[in-house]
């Protein structure tokens, strides 16, 4: 089966979610890979949400908010930008390609752009391939076992 990226999208209520809504009512087709989560503001997106999404199976995370200057809460999107730029720096430390995280400004009127962003990001993540954080963690521990239990499992009997 071909790989279909699982993408979690955090969309701000006032601009980007409304933009996504517009894409829907305008019947614009876009990649079905995104799972949209409405948040009141892109500034509500705690970096914990992003890391949690990755740790529980997301291949990519999209954060979308109002254009600079348009934030319903004045400055929430600037906060999102700062967190995003900091997250981008630490993802490689975890062995995660920073290209799996994207921040975009999408206004309520930009249904077309929402579809374009989702399509582009889906293809970008598709090229990066599956992430499988959980599987990698389990794999990393496969030899972390008690030696006598390993011998027993191999049928060589207990050594001690």
């Amino acid at each position, binding site marked *: 089966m071909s790989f279909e990226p699982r993408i979690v999208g955090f969309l701000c209520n006032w601009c980007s979610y409304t933009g996504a809504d517009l894409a829907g009512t305008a019947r614009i087709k876009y990649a079905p890979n995104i799972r949209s989560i409405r948040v009141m503001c892109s500034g509500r997106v705690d970096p914990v949400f992003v890391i949690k999404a990755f740790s529980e199976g997301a291949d990519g995370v999209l954060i979308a908010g109002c254009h600079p200057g348009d934030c319903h809460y004045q400055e929430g999107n600037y906060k999102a930008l700062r967190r995003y730029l900091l997250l981008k720096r630490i993802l490689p430390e*975890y062995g995660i390609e920073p290209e799996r995280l994207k921040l975009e400004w999408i206004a309520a009127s930009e249904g077309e752009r929402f579809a374009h962003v989702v399509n582009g990001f889906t293809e970008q993540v598709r090229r990066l391939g599956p992430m499988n954080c959980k599987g990698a963690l389990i794999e990393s521990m496969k030899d972390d076992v008690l*030696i006598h239990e390993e011998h027993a499992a191999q049928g060589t009997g207990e050594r001690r």
Partner: protein
Amino acid sequence: MKLNIAIYWGAACGGCDVAILDTHEKLLEIADVVDIHLWPIAMDFKYADVRALADGYLDATLFSGAVRNSENEEIAKLLRKKSKAMIALGACAHTGGVPGLANMYTRGEILDRVYLRSESTNNPEGTLPAEEFMVDAGELQLPRFYNTVKTLDQVVDVDYYIPGCPPASLQIYSALGLLADDMLPKKGSVIGAGDRALCDECARKKSEKTITKIYRTHEKLPDPETCFLEQGFICLGPATRSGCGSRCIKSWTPCRGCYGPLDGVQDQGIKMLGALASVLEPKDEKGINAILDTVVDPLRTVSRFSLASSMLRRKKV
């Protein structure tokens, strides 16, 4: 009747054991109410002595240190079986501690660095530690060095946690008091600590936080009265549990986060990253990146004691 306890260390520096001794004259009070059945740093008991005990014989085990090799895991499981209460003592057992930072590397990378490449290594034959080795007296065995460092509760069921690197001695004393008086709270609780953020008990003056420049502690003498974070020093107070008595803060040193996350927080380090990004002043990408360039090693700074218990737990390989 005296309490039967064991005190053990996994991947630890021994600082938690010293913190127990640092209860000073109160140690005599502790000695009045407990019988110790294992304490490798201080007393000569063998694992066989513990194996000979009936299951559940020990009232409690104080386990310090992370689980980084097969011996740590084996003894953790043994003590779990022999103990009514398993208590994780200190940051390493609680959240992985400094040994947990090794999860940024693989076992292979660590062995390579330590035994083959470090500047002070002289190992022309490239000898690496072996798990089994023959000598005249017979076969010797070493524990297996694990690829991923684990917290105690990732290996055995843990009843209580006493945080800190090391835990404040008086907090160990008060936690032992809870045990002696049979007043322990519900299973899974953090004991010997507060339940609010360190900032809540910090005496420094706090106002609106906007940081325009980040400083490391050697780069500037901190103002004695103002919040460290407001001065541009990365202080983990907002994301760290109180209970340490602000030891570092009172010594003019920003909090490094050893008391671990607050209740309900899944990832102390990432939470702190969010807080740090929030209080930076710039609003444009260029300005933000300029200030982020001065944050040396952000992930290890905020997850210094909690990487092994964080959501991702290790570098993906």
